[in-house]
């Protein structure tokens, strides 16, 4: 019997689960390729690319060069590097520029390429003219939404094609970018860190409202999308949602924000809040990627 089970495991399903070939896709089936095993690289790649662009975006308003440099590096070196690690044939990565007319991934590669060059020019020349700033602002926003945009166009996965996916990704990128920016101001003793706290208060609430709207909108989108949300709220992913997104990503940062409400901010607390929202945001991305399901075939 043991031998038979072993053989079935090998012969049948790629994941080694108990699913047999004839059971595959006869009920809603979760996507695995972009989250399990090496797929986790993609989550990290999207995360780094987007938070880096978020920091760049916020730094642009204040012409804060350190923020621009760090944002540019995080986005391209960390984000881009991890992206390449995910690929099956990384040395062919340049080929991803070949189909911008239909492929969102290809369009994203172009945008990242243009951002890399234009950002470099801006950092080196310190050109903060209004036209250049607007261009870089738009490019940053496009990169912030790149990962979720790539997911959003996949019609086969209802949980990803939800309308709230893009606003959520933009707010999340800007929110984390803003926190990194404030932390950098605080450690460098810049007084602006204090007046900036109002943005942190607003964005924390907006971010969480976006998460709730995503859940609500996706739940009502289709039967399969509803299953994804149930998995998130009541199924295997509930611990990540309540522990990661709600507690670590919202409640604890809220407590810290309330503690600093009277304007008494300090770099230690800002760092703690930043670490918490990092973890909360990764948890949010993980469950969105992990909970996406395909409609059954029959």
């Amino acid at each position, binding site marked *: 019997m043991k031998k038979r089970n072993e053989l079935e495991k090998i012969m049948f399903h790629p994941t080694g689960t108990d699913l047999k*070939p004839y059971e595959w896709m006869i009920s809603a089936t979760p996507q695995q390729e972009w989250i399990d095993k090496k797929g986790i690289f993609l989550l990290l790649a999207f995360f780094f690319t987007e938070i880096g662009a978020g920091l760049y975006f916020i730094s642009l308003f204040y012409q804060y060069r350190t923020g621009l440099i760090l944002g540019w590096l995080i986005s391209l070196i960390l984000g881009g590097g991890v992206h390449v690690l995910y690929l*099956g044939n990384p040395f062919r990565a340049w080929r991803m520029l070949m189909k911008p007319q239909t*492929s969102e991934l290809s369009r994203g590669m172009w945008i990242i390429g243009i951002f890399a060059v234009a950002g470099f020019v801006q950092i080196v020349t310190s050109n903060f003219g209004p036209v250049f700033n607007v261009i870089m602002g738009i490019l940053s926003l496009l990169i912030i939404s790149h990962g979720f945009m790539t997911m959003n166009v996949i019609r086969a996965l209802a949980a990803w094609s939800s309308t709230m996916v893009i606003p959520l990704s933009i707010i999340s990128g800007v929110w984390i970018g803003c926190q990194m920016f404030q932390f950098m101001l605080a450690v460098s003793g810049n007084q602006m860190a204090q007046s900036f706290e109002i943005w942190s208060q607003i964005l924390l609430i907006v971010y969480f409202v976006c998460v709730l709207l995503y859940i609500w909108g996706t739940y009502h989108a289709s039967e399969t999308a509803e299953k994804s949300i149930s998995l998130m709220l009541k199924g295997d992913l509930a611990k990540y949602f309540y522990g990661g997104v709600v507690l670590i990503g919202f409640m604890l940062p809220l407590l810290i924000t309330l503690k600093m409400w009277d304007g008494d901010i300090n770099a230690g607390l800002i760092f703690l809040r930043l670490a918490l929202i990092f973890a909360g945001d990764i948890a949010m991305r993980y469950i969105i990627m992990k909970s996406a399901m395909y409609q059954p075939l029959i």
Partner: protein
Amino acid sequence: MARWGMVIDVKRCIACWSCTISCKEEHFLPPNVFWNRVLIGEAGKFPTSRKLIYPVLCNHCADAACVDACPTGATYKREDGIVAVDYDKCVGCRACLISCPYQQRTYYDEEKKNAEYFPGQGKTEYEKIGEKLYPFTCGTVMKCNFCTERIEEGLEKGLTPGTDDEASPACVIACPVGARIFGDLDDSESEISRLIMEKNGKQLHPEFGTEPAVYYID
């Protein structure tokens, strides 16, 4: 130019998995890789429930989600309607795999390459021959190719795919009950066009707008 397609008569299918096995043999597919599957499900509720048997394969969609998603052009649509993968261009991003609403693609990696049909006993001669005859590239995506090689060789010999066994996909000729009919969708006189018209052939998930070239009749 013909546009190849398939009709599957689900009433005839007896779920013998001959198609699944013949496909594996034809392409020397490693363990855990299926280009052809037979799904068994249920519709309705007791006491009026019925058993559903659906053989599934790549639909070689006219408006394929995988073709649109592929950033490199490695997945492309041929003039004869077959959706093919150029392993030399594939970067292994799996955008195609994720985008396919029918989940007909498989990522081929080291794990799959090294998998043995008789674990721990090394590869059989048959598996070794397969690796030479039908080499796959690690880090790329693979899927059903409608037995392109059989169709092309058959056409060169002046045979007609769908009519002559030698020019038809392996799953079609292996099916003991004739549940699979292959042919030219653009030829209104072909058997498959007639069956689709007469028996109101249905595609899987037409709502995705991919226009599958595989139709189901019952």
